[in-house]
């Protein structure tokens, strides 16, 4: 599905957030990235669609090519849905408009200045229905609860008809009950549509329950990569006992301004 060859990411100022990794993500697999805060989960996840451009190495998307190529990257982003910790909706727009944002990558700039065709609106509505929010379609996003906003975020990602789904701590700002709902929904949809998913979490319990495969990170290194049942207490200790990386931003920081690509 997507393979990483010697990919590392460093930030200006010299922080190596991700040490060189070689990784192969397989089609249809539900992978959880596990690690303490600052371990490099967001960095790895965001490199998978070049929101964080790797400093070294290459990322190859199956059937498309090397993401270094602008055209390849555009196609890859079209078919890669992303779900964020803070849902990242435009608060004053309706849920439907926010979901439609997932479709604009498929249209030219000029075409996207006008209302998208009915077929596209239908796709968006269908996605809202799947996350159980069809009745909220015309409500402003900032009038929805946290869990509902996160589901609109999922609908937006689904509207892209993605082959790959990236979710960066999608449940970090939700209560445990809502978290379970959101994660179950995510996994069910990925199963039904054969979507490859990479989800970062910091809760071991959730990771064990939902993952097909767990990749654990510690200080930018992959320290574990296997099925959840192979995760034992000693590996868990090595994930969480390592000294925490203090001082860095706990939220993913925008690495580039809006016009960067």
């Amino acid at each position, binding site marked *: 599905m997507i393979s990483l060859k010697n990919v590392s990411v460093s930030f200006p100022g010299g922080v190596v957030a991700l040490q060189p990794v070689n990784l192969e993500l397989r089609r249809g697999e539900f992978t959880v990235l596990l690690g303490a805060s600052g371990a490099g989960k967001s960095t790895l996840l965001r490199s998978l669609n070049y929101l964080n451009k790797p400093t070294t190495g290459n990322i190859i998307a199956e059937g498309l090519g090397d993401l270094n190529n602008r055209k390849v990257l555009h196609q890859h*982003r079209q078919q890669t849905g992303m779900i964020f910790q803070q849902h990242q909706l435009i608060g004053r727009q309706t849920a439907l408009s926010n979901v439609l*944002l997932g479709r604009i*990558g498929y249209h030219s700039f000029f075409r996207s200045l006008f209302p998208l065709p009915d077929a596209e609106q239908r796709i968006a509505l269908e996605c809202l229905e799947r996350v159980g929010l069809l009745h909220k379609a015309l409500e402003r996003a900032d009038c929805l609860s946290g869990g509902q906003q996160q589901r609109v975020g999922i609908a937006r990602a689904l509207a892209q008809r993605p082959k790959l789904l990236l979710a960066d701590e999608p449940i970090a700002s939700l209560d445990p009950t809502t978290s379970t709902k959101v994660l179950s929904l995510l996994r069910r949809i990925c199963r039904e549509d054969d979507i490859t998913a990479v989800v970062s979490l910091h809760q071991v319990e959730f990771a064990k329950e939902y993952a097909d495969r767990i990749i654990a990170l510690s200080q930018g290194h992959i320290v574990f990569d296997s099925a959840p049942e192979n995760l034992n207490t000693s590996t868990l200790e090595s994930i969480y006992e390592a000294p925490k990386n203090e001082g860095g931003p706990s939220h993913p920081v925008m690495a580039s301004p809006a*016009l960067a690509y």
Partner: protein
Amino acid sequence: MENTFDEFLIKRRHEWNNTAIKFSLVMLGVLLCSYYVGLFDISRLSDGVPSLISLMGEMIPPDFSQAKDWIKPLLDTVAMSIAGTALAVTISIPLAFLAAHNTTPNAMVYRVARGTLNTLRAVPELIMGILFVAAVGFGALPGVLALGLHSIGMVGKFFAEAIEHVDEAPVEAARAAGATPLQVIMHGVFPQVLPQMADISVYRWEYNFRASTVMGMVGAGGIGFELMGSLRIMQYQDVSAILLVILVMVTLVDSFSGYLRKRFK
């Protein structure tokens, strides 16, 4: 213990002394300036009082007999303020995206755009009015061009600031969904700043209406032209009537714009 307390007290006293010195310096500057411009020249001021009173006397009662002739100039003024604001907003939007550091294509363009805005803001609209009257002749057109061009300086700057304060999160979401840079601006940034842009535009319209009442004084059309005419032939009863009409119009425009702006919240 006592000693550490003393340290705090000494520091505090120093701070107070510093503030007092700064305040005295500012006051001294203000007094010097006032003296320099003759604000303390009591005899000259008191000589002015009788002529001011007689002038006021000549203004009363306001004479509305010419009111019919003011309707067209008033409409000109309204049209000038609306067209001028529209011109300013139209040019400001693209300029603002170039002058906002999160949407500008590069540092050079950013500096040129910011420089343009500063220059336009620095030239007063009356001066621009004089220049445009010389260029395109008397009437509402030079007024519109002057108001529009000068307004870009402020409208563009405020637009750019609104753009710089957008929530980056949905912008990133748009980029992740495969939107091109232009689409990111159109669908990630623009919807977020739209209410602020509307608010700034209406506020500027209100300002431009007030400004367009004086544009006539340099020959750039509108009610100010009538005002100037009456002043020149010393028809002070007409002058006071026109001023009252302007006051009413400004109040109307202000409350209408206040109503509009509340709706953008």
